[in-house]
């Protein structure tokens, strides 16, 4: 789960990582008030969206007066920012971070992420931050029993170009960042840039965090930072129901059980020259009601021309899946071709139930056959809204 920069900075502040003083704002009035509270002669108004590259997209602006703060806030709020990470659709700016303006002497990069091969948290750092020419990335694997040792932190700090006088400050910062990462169940943390200011402070000027979704049950403060505006509504709804949802932009809706099967189903469709609209994975232990709910989500797509259900019953029994499908298809008055392939636990019973349901279902025995039927029937179905 991703959070906003201002929320990331709150997390850092709580764990003793120095950040610029600043406030989150939702209106030009709040932005002006925040600048007044911060004092000083200059401020930075930063658009808050879940994407990097905000600076290059014009989402970060300096202001030297209250009037200028108001103008920037007014222009940014409600605008759509497009960065390489948002894709062409861009993201609407709904909140801002108003911060003290700092004079940067030198910029660095500091990141942490779980390294699955090493089975540890990897710390990466370099002597250039925020879009400057990339420099050598220095890397350290953190011992989960000991955390970041003082000597390790000092070594990294020296490697990326801090001087001896600054080592104690950087050491504490790195150790505190790891504390935050560990205590909050982060999956990724980036301070980009980490800066040395003209007045000798070392600050996290950027803050980007992702958290382990499996650990949110014990991180209520983090879970409360979720911003539904930043999520694809279908994806958010699927997530709340315990499904995983991947949009693809085509016209064939897919319902599967299992991440591997989801990708294989996508492959099979592509090999037949089609593109999935989306793939909804109900996971292992779904109930009939959950399958029905997932099927309703699949059908809600505006450009659907066919639906492919590919279920390999293990935990999820085929008859249970069939009951869910039948219930949802009846209530939705299904109007596009439905291809179903069911294998595994209770497959015969599942197929019998589907056969007796009176629904127009195209049965397939194998994955490539199912994909072929789905692609062909999508092509012969008019686009929704076309006459």
């Amino acid at each position: 789960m991703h959070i906003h920069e201002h929320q990331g900075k709150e997390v850092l502040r709580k764990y003793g990582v120095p950040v610029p003083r600043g406030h989150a704002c939702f209106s030009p009035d709040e932005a002006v008030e925040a600048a007044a509270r911060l004092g000083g002669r200059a401020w930075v108004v930063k658009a808050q969206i879940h994407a990097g590259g905000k600076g290059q997209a014009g989402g970060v602006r300096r202001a030297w007066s209250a009037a200028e703060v108001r103008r920037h806030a007014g222009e940014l709020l409600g605008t759509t920012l497009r960065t390489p990470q948002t894709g062409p659709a861009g993201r609407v700016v709904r909140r801002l971070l108003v911060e003290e303006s700092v004079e940067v002497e030198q910029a660095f990069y500091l990141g942490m992420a779980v390294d699955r091969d090493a089975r540890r948290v990897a710390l990466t750092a370099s002597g250039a931050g925020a879009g400057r020419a990339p420099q050598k990335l220095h890397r350290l694997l953190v011992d989960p029993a000991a955390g970041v040792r003082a000597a390790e932190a000092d070594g990294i700090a020296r490697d990326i170009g801090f001087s001896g006088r600054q080592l104690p400050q950087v050491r504490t910062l790195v150790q505190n960042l790891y504390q935050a990462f560990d205590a909050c169940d982060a999956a990724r943390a980036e301070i980009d840039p980490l800066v040395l200011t003209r007045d000798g402070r070392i600050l996290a000027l950027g803050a980007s965090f992702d958290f382990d979704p499996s650990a949110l049950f014990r991180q209520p403060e983090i879970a409360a930072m979720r911003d539904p505006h930043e999520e694809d509504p279908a994806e958010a709804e699927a997530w709340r129901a315990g499904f995983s949802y991947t949009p693809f932009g085509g016209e064939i809706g897919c319902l599967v059980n299992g991440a591997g099967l989801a990708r294989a189903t996508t492959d099979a469709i592509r090999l037949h020259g089609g593109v999935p609209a989306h793939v909804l994975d109900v996971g292992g232990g779904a109930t009939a009601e959950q399958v029905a709910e997932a099927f309703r989500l699949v059908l809600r797509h505006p450009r659907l021309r066919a639906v492919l259900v590919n279920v390999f019953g293990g935990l999820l029994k085929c008859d249970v899946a069939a009951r869910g499908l039948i219930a949802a298809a009846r209530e939705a008055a299904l109007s596009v071709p439905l291809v179903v392939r069911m294998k595994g636990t209770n497959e015969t019973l599942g197929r019998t139930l589907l056969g007796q349901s009176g629904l127009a279902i195209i049965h397939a025995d194998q994955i490539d056959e199912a994909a072929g039927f789905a692609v062909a029937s999508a092509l012969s179905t008019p686009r929704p809204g076309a006459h």
Partner: protein
Amino acid sequence: MSILVNKHTRVITQGITGKAGQFHTAMCRDYGNGRKCFVAGVNPRKAGKSFDGIPVFGTVAEARAETGATVSVIYVPPPFAAAAIDEAVDAGLELVVCITQGIPVRDMIRTRERMAGRRTLLLGPNGPGLITPDEIKIGIMPGHVFQRGRIGVVSRSGTLAYEVASQLGRFGIGQSTVVGVGGDAIGGLGCIDVMKMFNDDPRTDAVIMVGDTGGSDEESCAQWICEHMQKPVVGFVAGAVPGGGEGARQTLAVMKACGLHVTENPAEIGELLASLVAPDYLPFD
């Protein structure tokens, strides 16, 4: 023959009284030699009771001491699952199979760290378990899609392991052991560990490896195969078709360069394996 487990394996179920633990232990007992294999359950609050004729103990150590079981399977909910693995490791079991999905990454980092230098092997978490067809099934896979034979299967995906077994079945080809290594970022045995076991198993003639994206397990396994493997290997990674992910394409290219027989088509995995073994290949051991 087989790897890791066979009809003589004795198994403890951790989390036997939960919904998944009850259901799947019953299913596993109904498969192959399951009645004799599943000998104990563990639940600290229900020690002394019995479930469907299986005695429930307070700790894994007690269950092991009383029954001689050397393997456990875990259906404990995510917040407590890593601690359940720790307990099985501390009891000195040979193999722990963790089915639980959604264990926090941080817990698994700590658990793997604790396991360093211990003899216990971990399979999973977030995997379907493993099966030696007709003998023993430990986990959640549908038993009837597998048949006894001489092909090894190692898969990062549960449903694709079923898919592969079902495709092999169409050619009358059975499996020695099918191992689901699980899809989590931090897990136990990787493809490479299982591949080495299949290489050493006299009753395995060829292997199918179903990979996934993320991490370098499949690629280092392919390198190992290139240098050491004595048997043909079929490799598949989902997402390697044009329009899919760059990572999957690269992994498949590495597999191919290392001498694996690869396909990007998930429907052709069984057929590809069948084409490698002689036409008069008898799928029996």
